């Protein structure tokens, strides 16, 4: 084995020297660092999933590199490999963008093919970052990355200001139901940290955001390259009083509104052990997609409409006093009801109404257009039904942000359509309930997933 090369951790960075960072980290973790799940003193602040939107030109890779680096998620040998790759490409400095390029085909061509997932932790909160590349398949990748994200960071190059892609990214993040959108005005170092540049961009983005009906945006001026306002505040953006990007990520409130929403529980499996002691056991297994449930709560089963009450909530033999959104549990009911995989257990008070037709927004992901796709299957929760596209009402023009007439549906198109279903599903409007309002379309001939669907408002149902 060759002698290992000393890692070049500082090339391309002008942040704090490594030693200081070590010290900070130690001070932060302390000698007695024990994760909260073990009963230590540090609170576990949950899990935040986010997506970064922008291209390499906006400094996206540098920003990701900065977040990973300053949170110590790039380890020494990964940095070694990075230095080696950079040299192989004839680069003098370590190219942090190589961190986000995973596949050899991509490295050969210098492009990014697919959504990659990165993980880092601050010691209190864990982060999952979906890094969606910004080339022609952008819509497909961003829709995929955004579907599991809580927050989007839209990157803007301070020198270039608001570009068509800024509108596109913001619109898609909003369309996919992300509650938090952070506009990161990057490369402030190249505009002399000028407050006026930042204010102009803030006003421009604010204008089209209100037109789209986006209630709240967070704006942060930063320099990913120099490290200003990413993790550390730096000293060159004194006029900005808000949080750094990391402070914002740390303080974003999670989960709670999800738990206040109506209870939805798509049934995955029915557990019937049929052993002697469990002869009458009938447990409904699934994940709480929204809301909360406790013993005694009244439920409605859709699409049958059968009603009952929850008798007991179990996980691995243990009885739970309550289950909330995000938890996978087993429900036992008071009455013997006919329930199988594909059914939806919902709160009786706010049960969705079954329907065999709906209006929806589709993000078309299939490589072939709708007109040459096979028969479609719609999957909502755990339920699958055959589906037909009735009318294609319009396509969203992502440049003009307006609906335009359309004949066929091609990859990366965002369209509004009506769908006819062979059997009923019980959906929610996507703007009200993200999980209850989402579905996918599968091509029965190829088995490929060809569209992401968002159920529009209840007025259409």
């Amino acid at each position, binding site marked *: 084995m*060759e002698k*290992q090369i000393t890692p070049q951790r500082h090339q391309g960075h002008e942040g704090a020297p490594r030693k200081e960072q070590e010290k900070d*980290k130690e001070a932060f973790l302390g000698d007695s*660092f*024990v*994760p909260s*799940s073990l009963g230590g003193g540090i609170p*576990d*602040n*949950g*899990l935040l999933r986010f997506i970064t939107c922008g291209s390499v030109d906006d400094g996206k890779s540098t920003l990701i590199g900065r977040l990973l680096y300053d949170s110590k998620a790039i*380890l020494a*040998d*990964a940095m070694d*490999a990075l230095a080696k790759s950079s040299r192989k490409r004839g680069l003098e400095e370590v190219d942090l963008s190589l961190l986000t390029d*995973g*596949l*050899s*085909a991509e490295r050969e061509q210098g492009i990014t093919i*697919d*959504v*990659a*997932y*990165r*993980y880092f*932790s601050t010691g209190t*909160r*864990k982060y999952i970052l979906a890094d969606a590349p910004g080339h022609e398949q952008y819509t*497909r990748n961003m829709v*995929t990355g955004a*579907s*599991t994200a809580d927050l989007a960071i839209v990157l803007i190059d301070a020198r270039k200001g608001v570009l068509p892609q800024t509108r596109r990214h913001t619109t898609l993040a909003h369309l996919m139901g992300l509650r938090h959108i952070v506009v990161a005005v990057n490369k402030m170092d190249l505009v002399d940290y000028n407050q006026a540049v930042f204010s102009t961009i803030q006003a421009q983005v604010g204008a089209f955001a209100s037109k789209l009906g986006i209630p709240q945006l967070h704006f942060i001026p930063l320099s990913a390259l120099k490290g200003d306002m990413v993790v550390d505040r730096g000293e060159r953006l004194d006029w900005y009083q808000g949080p750094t990007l990391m402070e914002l990520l740390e303080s974003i409130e*999670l989960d*709670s509104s999800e*738990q206040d929403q109506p209870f939805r529980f798509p049934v*995955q*499996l029915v*557990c019937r*052990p049929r052993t002697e002691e*469990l002869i009458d*056991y009938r*447990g409904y*297994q*699934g*994940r709480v997609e929204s809301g909360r449930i406790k013993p005694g709560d009244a439920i409605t089963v859709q699409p049958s409409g059968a009603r009952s009450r929850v008798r007991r909530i179990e996980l*691995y*033999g243990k009885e739970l006093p309550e289950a*909330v959104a*995000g*938890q*996978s549990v087993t429900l036992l009911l008071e009455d013997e009801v006919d329930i199988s995989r594909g059914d939806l257990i919902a709160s009786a008070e706010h049960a969705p109404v079954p329907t065999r037709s709906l209006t929806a927004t589709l993000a078309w*992901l299939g490589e072939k257009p709708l007109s040459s796709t096979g028969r479609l299957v719609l*999957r909502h929760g*755990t339920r699958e039904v055959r589906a037909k596209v009735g009318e294609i009402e319009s396509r969203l023009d992502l440049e003009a942000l307006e609906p335009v007439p359309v004949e066929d549906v091609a990859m990366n198109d965002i369209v509004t359509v009506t769908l006819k279903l062979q059997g009923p599903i019980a959906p929610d409007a996507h703007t009200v309930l993200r*999980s209850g309002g*989402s579905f*996918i379309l599968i091509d029965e001939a190829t*088995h*490929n*997933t060809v569209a992401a669907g968002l159920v529009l408002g209840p007025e259409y149902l």
Partner: protein
Amino acid sequence: MTNRLLTHLERLEGEAIHILREVAGQCANPALLFSGGKDSVVLLRLAEKAFRPGRFPFPLVHIDTGHNYAEVIDFRDRRAAELGEKLIVRTLDESIAKGRIVLRSATESRNRHQSVTLLDTVEEFEFDALIGGARRDEEKARAKERVFSFRDEFGQWDPKNQRPELWNLYNARIHKGEHMRAFPISNWTELDVWQYIAEEGLELPEIYFAHEREVVELPGGALLPVTDLTPIPAGKSSVRRSVRFRTVGDISCTAPVLSEARTVEDIIKETATTEITERGATRLDDQTSEASMEQRKKEGYF
């Protein structure tokens, strides 16, 4: 009603159980890969949470290279028996005897050859899905792999032609002869796995904890364990060191790290402050080339 913030482990657990149940709900004949390693030990606990009081809707499968540490194999058998679940073992030795695998030398690493036995096993039992403990933080190619990852009839992974995966609406549909790989702990990191092991009080093979072992110190810092398969290289000498294994696999390509960590809590502390990635420290096979994992995966590797 006050809202309760789920811990990151509760979130990951909820997601993993959901994925396991989707495999059971969508696939007719799945299997769970169980090696006795820490990630698959976590998978077993998650499967208990997903399916108890019922039985697992799949057998456990191990592809035994014949080059595993004896204590790991003992642990594997004991754990399967405790759970009362079926364990299917297929060995590389059988594949070699049948001529399906030809080794260039008796001590060659058998890691790469596992794919042959694995795919033969898929055909033998007509499995339509294999559940594995791979994680996206392990390696660059894995970072781009889906939770439900499609394999064609040659067992190949095509990174450029993956199905879009939206929300938690997984699509496990396949044609006959093809199969799915499902990775319930895709979004877990090494630290998450250790924290979960601590929280659940899971038992592991002893070689995960610090112990005295005869090793050869290689240039660059890697440690070569001295075994029948990996004797002391000519011109080198061995030393005794306190070490533990971070990953457990084929003896010929798995190296221990220096460690004094004798408990799960010690390991969590070490993992939280480590400087070296999990595979970088311990897998001699991934360092051959930048794309070696990607290449193996395309050939049907786990």
